[in-house]
C-alpha cells in the first residue's frame, strides 16, 4: 500500500511541482529586505457569517474533493462543516496564478514564493489576521514571517508546506559517498555523462549556493540575489557542468528511470523521487550536502478583493488543520506546515523522512524566490540580474 501511495503522491507532485518549478517558487529564508512597499491594506479583525461558497486557485493536488481519487478527499468534509461550497481552479504556473488573482474572482490562492511577492506588491493579496486562523499557532516557526509570505512582520498568508532539493547518488557507483555539491560541479567529470540536474532556470541558484560556500571572493549572500559578476560565475560553472551532464530532468518519471538504469548516478532530486526510486529497487541515497540546499515553500493567501472572505478564512484554517495538512502533505509529497500534522499521517515515519519538524534542517535551505533587479539581499549599490535573464542564460547553458 505504501508504494501505491508514494506513486500517487509522486504523480501529483510531478504534475504540480514541475509546473511550479518552471518559473515559480518560494521565497528565500528570512534574510531579505526586498524594499517592497505594498499598499496599506487592512486584515479583518473578526469573522462574519460564511457566504456559502469560496473560489480557490491552487496547485494540482492541493484541493482534492475525491473526483481524482475517491479516497483522496478533504473538501467534502469542509463543505459539510462550514457550508462553504468549494470551487477550485488548478493553475499551471505562478504566472497563471497571478493572472487569475488579478481578475478578483477568486478568494484565496496557494501561492509559491515569487507569486506571493508579486501579489503582495500589486495589492492583490491582503494581509491575513492570523488570530482568526486557530491552527496557525501550530505552524512550524520556521515558516512564519518568511521573506516570501510576510512584509515588515505582517503575515500575508498561512504556510502550507515545504520541500528541499536534495543531492541523490547511486550508492554502488558513486564512491566515496558525496557530502558536497562538488559531486555535481567541480568533481562532476568523474561521472561524465551520468550527472543529472533539474531542468529549470531556477537551478542557477543551486550553482550560486555552491559558489557561496566555495568561492567566498564572490561574496554571494543570497543565491537569488546575484549581481552580474556573481551571475556570470554561476553560469560559467553550469556551462562546465553541462559537459558532464547526461540529461536534465523535469519529469519525476524520467529521473526515477534514469537512476534505475544507471544512466544517471548523481544529481539533484526531491525526497518523493528518492523514495520512489528506492522503492523500485534503485540503490540510491539522498541528502542535504554540507553547503545546504535550495527548496520551495507555498502559502495560502487571501485576495484583497475576496467576495467570500469568511469562507476563505475557514479554508485557510481547514487546510492547515493537523489531519488535512497531513493528508495533503502525504498526497503531494512534501513536509506539512502544521506541527501537529505529524501525528496524523498514515505513514508514521512520514515526518521523519520529510524532516517536517527538523528546524535545523530547514535552516540550511534557501527557499526558491524570484530574482528581481532590486537585490533581494538588501544591496542597493548594484543591480541584480532579473529572472528573465536567468531564463535566457539557462537556454545558453544547455546550448
Amino acid at each position, binding site marked *: 500500500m505504501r508504494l501505491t501511495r508514494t506513486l500517487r503522491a509522486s504523480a501529483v507532485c510531478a504534475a504540480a511541482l514541475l509546473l511550479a518549478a*518552471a*518559473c515559480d517558487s518560494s521565497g528565500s529564508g528570512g534574510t531579505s529586505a526586498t524594499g517592497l512597499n505594498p499598499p496599506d491594506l487592512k486584515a479583518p479583525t473578526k469573522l462574519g457569517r460564511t457566504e456559502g461558497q469560496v473560489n480557490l486557485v491552487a496547485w494540482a493536488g492541493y484541493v482534492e474533493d475525491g473526483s481524482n481519487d475517491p479516497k483522496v478527499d478533504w473538501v467534502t468534509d469542509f463543505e459539510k462543516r462550514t457550508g462553504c461550497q468549494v470551487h477550485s481552479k488548478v493553475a499551471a*504556473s505562478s*504566472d*497563471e496564478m*497571478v493572472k487569475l488573482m488579478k481578475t478578483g474572482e477568486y478568494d484565496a490562492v496557494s501561492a509559491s514564493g515569487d507569486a506571493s511577492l*508579486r501579489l503582495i*506588491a*500589486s495589492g492583490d493579496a491582503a494581509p491575513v489576521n492570523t488570530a482568526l486562523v486557530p491552527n496557525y499557532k501550530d505552524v512550524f516557526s520556521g515558516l512564519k514571517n518568511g521573506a516570501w509570505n510576510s512584509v515588515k512582520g505582517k503575515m500575508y498568508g498561512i504556510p502550507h508546506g515545504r520541500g528541499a532539493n536534495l543531492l541523490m547518488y547511486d550508492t554502488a557507483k558513486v564512491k566515496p559517498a558525496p557530502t558536497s555539491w562538488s559531486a555535481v560541479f567541480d568533481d562532476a567529470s568523474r561521472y561524465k*555523462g551520468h550527472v543529472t540536474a533539474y531542468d529549470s*532556470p531556477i537551478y542557477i541558484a543551486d550553482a550560486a549556493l555552491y559558489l557561496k560556500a566555495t568561492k567566498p571572493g564572490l561574496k554571494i549572500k543570497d543565491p537569488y540575489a546575484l549581481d552580474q559578476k556573481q551571475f556570470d560565475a554561476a553560469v560559467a560553472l553550469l556551462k562546465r557542468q*553541462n559537459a558532464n*551532464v*547526461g*540529461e*536534465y530532468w*523535469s*519529469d519525476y*518519471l*524520467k529521473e526515477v*528511470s*534514469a537512476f534505475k*538504469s*544507471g*544512466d544517471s548516478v548523481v544529481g539533484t532530486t526531491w525526497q518523493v523521487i528518492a523514495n520512489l526510486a528506492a522503492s523500485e529497487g534503485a540503490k540510491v541515497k539522498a541528502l542535504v550536502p554540507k553547503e545546504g540546499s535550495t527548496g520551495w515553500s507555498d502559502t495560502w493567501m487571501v485576495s484583497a478583493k475576496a467576495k467570500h472572505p469568511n469562507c476563505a478564512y475557514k479554508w485557510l484554517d481547514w487546510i492547515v488543520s493537523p489531519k488535512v495538512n497531513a493528508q495533503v502533505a502525504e498526497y503531494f509529497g512534501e513536509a506539512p506546515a502544521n506541527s501537529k500534522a505529524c501525528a496524523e499521517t498514515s505513514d508514521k515515519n512520514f515526518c521523519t523522512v520529510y524532516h517536517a519538524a527538523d528546524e535545523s534542517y530547514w535552516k540550511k535551505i534557501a527557499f526558491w524566490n524570484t530574482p*528581481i*533587479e532590486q537585490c533581494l539581499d538588501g544591496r542597493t549599490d548594484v543591480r541584480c540580474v*532579473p*529572472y*528573465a535573464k536567468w*531564463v535566457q542564460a*539557462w*537556454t*545558453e547553458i*544547455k*546550448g
Partner: protein
Amino acid sequence: MTTDLPTAAGRGTVRRLAGTLHRRPRLRLALLLTAPLLWLAVLYLGSLAVLFVSAFWTTDSFTSQVVKVWSTDNFHALFTTPVFRQVVLRSVGVALAVTALCALIAFPVAFYTARVARPRWRPLLVVGILTPLWASYLVKVYAWRLILSEGGLADWMLAPFGLSGPGYGLPATVLTLTYLWLPYMILPIHTALEQLPAGLLDASADLGARPGRTFRSVVLPMVLPSVAAGSVFTFSLSLGDYITVQIVGGKTQLIGNLVYSNIELNLPMAAALGTVPVAVIVLYLLAIRRTGALNSL
C-alpha cells in the same frame, strides 16, 4: 393535423428561397463554404497572425506580463544570439535526417507491401504498418527510452559485436522520431507504387533494362512526388516535436523546447521562436511544390 403543416405563406418563402438557390450555384457554394472557411481563416490563419504580431511585443520584467509596445528586439535576439542559431540549425538538421532515414526505410517496405507481397496479404500489411499509430505517443517514446537506456535492449543486442547503444542524445532523438513518423512516409509511397502500372515495368524489362535501371528510370521518377509528400509529414512533425527530445534527447534542446521554456515568462520571445518553424516549413512546402508532390497528398 393541419396546424403541423407550414402555412401557405411559409411554403411560398421556402419555395422562393429554394428557387433562388437553385438558380444561383455561386450563392449556394458561398453559403456552404462560409462556415468552414471562416474556421480556417479565423482560427487557423488568425492565430498564426496573432502569433506573428505578438512576437513584436515585449514583457514587463517583474510581472512577466505582455506589454504591447512595438519592438523588433525579439527578432534581433533571434538572429544575433549564437545559441538560437545553433538550436535552429540543429532542429532543421534533425528534421532532415529523420526525413532521409524515413524515406530510406519506407521505400523497400512500401515496395514489398505494394508489389511483392501476395495481393490478399497487402491490406493486412498496411494495417500492420498503421498499428503503431493506435498506441499512445508517450508510451512509444518511453519504450524507446527503456530500449536505449544503459544496459537496455540496444546495449544488449550490440554487445556481441563489441558495440554499445547510442545512449540518450541527438542520435537517439533522430532514431525515435524516425520510428514515430515512419508510417506517414510508408503510406504515400505504398499508394504510389500500388498505382504504378505493371505494364511499364514489363515494357522496361522487354527493352532490356535490368531491375536497377528500371528502378532509376521508371519507378523512381513516378514515385518521387509521393516521397516528397511523405516528407512533408515527417519533416514538419519532426521540426515541431519537443517531447521526444525531452525523453530520449539527454541534454539536447530543439526549437520546441525553447518555445516551451519561454512561453510562461516571455510570450513574445516564444512567439518569435515559434515563427521559425512556420517559416522553415513554408519554405519547405514551396520547394516541395516544385516537385508536384502537393498534388498527390
